[in-house]
């Protein structure tokens, strides 16, 4: 296993005095693909926000590789967090984190623009660069946010429900791109999703959060029929098809 890029030690998370998660010990190595799953309100987004530094843990520590500098993060938030009042084009949205890297420069550089256009091209939106972000379709906005995360050349890519609102083809292309970058650049990927099938097919390891605690391990061990049925309800089944795991909800008889 590679040297851990990120290490959580005894981390507790929550709001005010309410603790959502406790005692989380976890390591994420370069090139690793970690899926984070769990029912609504189990603390998936809170956990990744703690990793990103947005929420401070109530207890425990989050360390970077060798106790050194914070890695470069690429972050794809849930799409509805973005305020449409801003009159930004798709290119502007991708440029924001690039331009903000410069301490004393009022405008993005030519290199920033080139990098931003390249990132948009990677997600298939080169021809939409000058369209207002608010006017793009839901799926296109999601791809712009992925382009924005990739443009900063991250070491860790954090994706919070990146395929919500995307059709199957677009979702597949985005996740294939993430996979390719992970292999090429040794990118660590943290993928938060409700879609257990997607996580089972993509992630090498899964962190499963639930009311009573958390579990982490290889995907084949965690996304397993009995466990998933217990956590999500009797109707939820894990099936095998062509070597892939598929999680489905079986309608109740007479329902």
């Amino acid at each position, binding site marked *: 296993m590679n040297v851990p890029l990120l290490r959580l030690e005894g981390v507790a998370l929550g709001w005010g005095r309410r603790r959502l998660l406790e005692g989380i010990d976890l390591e994420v190595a370069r090139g690793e693909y970690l899926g984070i799953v769990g029912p609504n309100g189990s603390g998936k987004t809170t956990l990744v*926000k703690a990793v*990103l*530094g*947005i929420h401070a843990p109530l207890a425990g520590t989050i360390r970077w590789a060798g106790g050194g500098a*914070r890695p*470069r*993060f690429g*972050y794809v*938030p849930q799409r509805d*967090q*973005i*305020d449409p*009042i*801003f*009159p*930004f*084009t798709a290119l*502007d*949205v991708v440029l*924001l*984190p690039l*331009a*903000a*890297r*410069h301490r*004393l*420069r*009022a*405008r*993005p550089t030519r290199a920033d623009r080139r990098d931003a256009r390249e990132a948009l091209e990677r997600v298939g939106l080169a021809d939409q660069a000058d369209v*207002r972000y608010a006017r793009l379709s839901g799926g296109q906005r999601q791809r712009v946010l992925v382009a*924005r995360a990739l443009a*900063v050349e991250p070491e860790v890519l*954090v994706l919070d429900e990146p395929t919500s609102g995307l059709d199957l083809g677009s979702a597949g292309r985005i996740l294939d791109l993430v996979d390719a970058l992970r292999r090429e650049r040794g990118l660590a990927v943290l993928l938060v999703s409700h879609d257990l099938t997607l996580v089972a097919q993509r992630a090498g390891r899964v962190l499963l959060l639930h009311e009573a605690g958390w579990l982490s391990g290889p995907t084949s061990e965690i996304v397993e029929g009995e466990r998933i049925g217990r956590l999500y309800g009797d109707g939820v089944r894990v099936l095998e098809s062509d070597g892939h795991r598929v999680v489905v909800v079986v309608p109740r008889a007479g329902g």
Partner: protein
Amino acid sequence: MEQLWSDLRLFREAFVGGAIAAGLLAFLGLHVVLRRIVFVGIALSQWAAVGIAFSFLAQSIALFDESHVLGVCRNHWVMAAVGEGLGLLLLLRGDERVVSREVRIGIGWAVAGALSVLFVAQSPVGMEELKNLLTGEALFIDRSGLLLLGATAALVLVPGSLFLARFLLVAFDRDLAVSLGVRVAVWDALFYLLLGLTLAVTIHLVGVLFAVAFLVIPPAAALSLARRQWTLVLVSAGIGVGSWIAGFVLSHRLDLPVGHAAVAVAGLVFAVARGVRALRRGA
């Protein structure tokens, strides 16, 4: 026309000062509108007015004698800043789940309005001063006021322009900014410092109505007309300065109060901008 040039010479400082105030407020107001904190801006201006009103009252109280350290309370600028600081504490701190920011802004605005009247009612200068404060007397900007406005504009425009990308990043997506290692609390503090400074100076020189109007109307109009970040900044500041000039000319022609005329012109520009946007969308 000759009369207009003659008046312009007579009110040179007021004319230039009003233009600087309008442009500066419109520049900073773009961030206020984009951050959806218009009411924070309005409430803050009211708290600056409380500070200034208290400084008038302090001038008649022995405790605030100039020879004493508390004599600083007689200074309008210091007290405007103190009022804003107090207002910011009340507006931005607190548990959102118990009392929302919107409610705190409403309460703060109402209480500040009442305190301004109560302080000035007890001061020797009385209600006339409060009326000037609220309605503004941009025409009375003198050389020292102009210098102060120029210095404030330099202090605000330089960091506001150099760090435009950072300010926009923090306003647009705070979580992304934090994930990139940007210290959002520092940038927020700098933004509110610049906003507080601008409001304290402009309210005392041009009045609450003028300050609030130019903080909101030109940026709102610019958002209907422009798309690119820097075009937005320039269009917003341009509408601010242009509305002031048009208001100045209009007030000269029709013998109207200049500040109110400028605000009315800005309102008209906003209506036209909305019309242009609607036409563009329909086209």
